[in-house]
């Protein structure tokens, strides 16, 4: 029997049964599918099971009723398997298909959900934006979906958090989570999490409070706050304001240059921004930051 035929028959047997089937019953019920040799049967069966589970098929191991001594068996509960998503009309599916083509997460299987919805007739749209993946995204997603507490190291500290949301903003991934030690919502940059994320089996009650990450320049995230005044020449003023967005606070001078008033919580990132203007910007205040810029430049020259 071909492998694909064997797997489809295995799914059929497990879906059609009312009560769990033991491994040996399964072999009897799909004649010709598995070896008579117990050891090679066991190995093939384990591999098949893994392969189907990797496809997302919910194979459960549960006790077979009325067995003494108790015996475990396998089944796929129809209620766990069968689609129950709302019926979307073809226009809605097409729009969703377009959206997931235009904006997609690198590495995501784009087609699988649409096959489950009956397929789509339109071609693929060119990508507007492929969202880069990060190695920690899958474990974060699992924690978010199952509401599991996680541990990780961040800024040399062990954190214990309840994840609330995963946000991609300004080319970076952030995990918004309730930090249990600090008893507050915190934003963690995924690329600054040190090492692995440890998933616990502890479930938490998701909060209904929404904490918005506004699209803000990256230097506004951090611990220590500084109020900065940066003078920017006319030639670069429009660009600077575009980068900062609608929340920019500034005054315009007679020559068209501007003085930007900016809240800075990550000085290093802001310094990078200041240097992007080269000699078209001058940091005015606070005096210790101005001095830091001058010292930095003097050490270079």
């Amino acid at each position, binding site marked *: 029997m071909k492998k694909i035929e064997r797997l489809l028959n295995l799914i059929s047997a497990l879906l059609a049964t009312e009560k769990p089937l033991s491994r040996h019953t399964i072999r009897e019920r799909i004649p010709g599918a598995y070896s008579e040799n117990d050891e090679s049967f066991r190995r093939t069966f384990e591999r098949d099971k893994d392969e189907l589970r990797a496809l997302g098929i919910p194979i459960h191991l549960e006790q077979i009723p009325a067995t003494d001594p108790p015996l475990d068996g396998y089944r796929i509960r129809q209620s766990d398997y069968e689609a129950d998503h709302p019926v979307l009309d073809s226009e809605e599916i097409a729009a969703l298909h377009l959206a997931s083509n235009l904006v997609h997460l690198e590495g995501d299987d784009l087609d699988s959900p649409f096959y489950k919805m009956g397929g789509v007739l339109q071609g693929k749209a060119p990508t507007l934006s492929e969202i880069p993946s990060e190695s920690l995204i899958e474990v974060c997603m699992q924690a978010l979906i199952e509401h599991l507490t996680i541990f990780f190291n961040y800024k040399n500290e062990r954190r214990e958090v309840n994840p609330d949301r995963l*946000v991609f903003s300004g080319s970076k991934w952030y995990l918004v989570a309730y930090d249990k030690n600090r008893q507050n919502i915190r934003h963690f940059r995924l690329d600054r999490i040190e090492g692995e994320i440890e998933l616990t089996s502890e479930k938490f009650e998701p909060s209904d409070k929404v904490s918005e990450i506004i699209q803000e320049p990256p230097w506004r995230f951090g611990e220590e706050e500084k109020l900065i005044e940066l003078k920017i020449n006319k030639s670069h003023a429009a660009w600077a304001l*575009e980068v900062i967005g609608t929340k920019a606070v500034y005054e315009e001078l007679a020559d068209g240059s501007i003085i930007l008033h900016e809240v800075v919580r990550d000085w290093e990132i802001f310094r*990078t921004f200041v240097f992007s203007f080269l000699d078209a910007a001058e940091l005015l205040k606070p005096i210790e930051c101005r001095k830091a810029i001058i010292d930095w430049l003097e050490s270079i020259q």
Partner: protein
Amino acid sequence: MRKMNSSERIKRLLSVLPWIESQNGPFVEEVVARFDYPQKELIEDLENVVFFVGIYPFTPDCLIEVSITEERVWVRYADWFRQPMKLSKRELTSLRAAGEALIAFSGSLPEEIEDELGPLERALTKLSIFDGGSENPLEIKLATPTKHLLEIQKSIKNETVIQIEYLVGSRNEISTRKIEPKKIFADGGKWYVQAYCKSSLASKTFRVDRIKEIKVLNEVRETKPVDDSDDKDFFNLEQFPVAVIEIPIKDKQLIEGFPNINFEKISDEKIRLSCPIASEVWFRHLLMVLGAEAELIEIPAEIESDFRSKGAREILKIYNS
């Protein structure tokens, strides 16, 4: 087309079978198109695989019945396959995030996409209710739509020539150019427009946030609408000379704003950067950011030896005046 492996075929068949069964003998062609299933493989899988699938005791009434005429296909008696698989929570999360990211841009998208936003919103509402009305735990914020995005999209659609005042990254000054925009894309949190630049007679990529002013000109385009969609000339870094710089490992975060730099760890204290110099202004910016602790290991011949100190002195001038 690449041959599908058994996992892929199973995954697809589990969607194909219930769909065929729910239709009254659909055309094979439609099944092929909907599920992206190569026709030859589809027929072979239906006739030589599915035909032998069933449940114990595999008497005729316990086997799936498949009949294929020249054009149409029927599947019967596959009761246990009457429904496709559930959407996983993970799939649902990604779908909602993509849809919501696009909705957030409503008003500044190309018209043909705007037209889809109504149905998209309906679909998202259904999915959100299905998901228990909860906030989606995944949120994708594309680059902030900038004010000129819409005007550029109009220009692409109406095939107009526009004049832009553009802050040229490589010279740190404003220049006026006539361009014929071809396509817009987002990359690394920024919007770009790919256009034919009439001022330099070449295809160029511009950062939308560096465009200061746009004026629509009453001129006819010289070039045709976009043909090749993957022409990111700007991102072709191989053409640029490369500088090699070593910095302390603790300074690694300083290069975050410079996505084109490759780096490798060379010891417990140091990393080595390989920096394609797309423009001297860019390189000067990098050197100022890295500071005095950066060691310049290899510098292309066209860069002067006092390039870094001169750059620092020029900025210092404004602080000393």
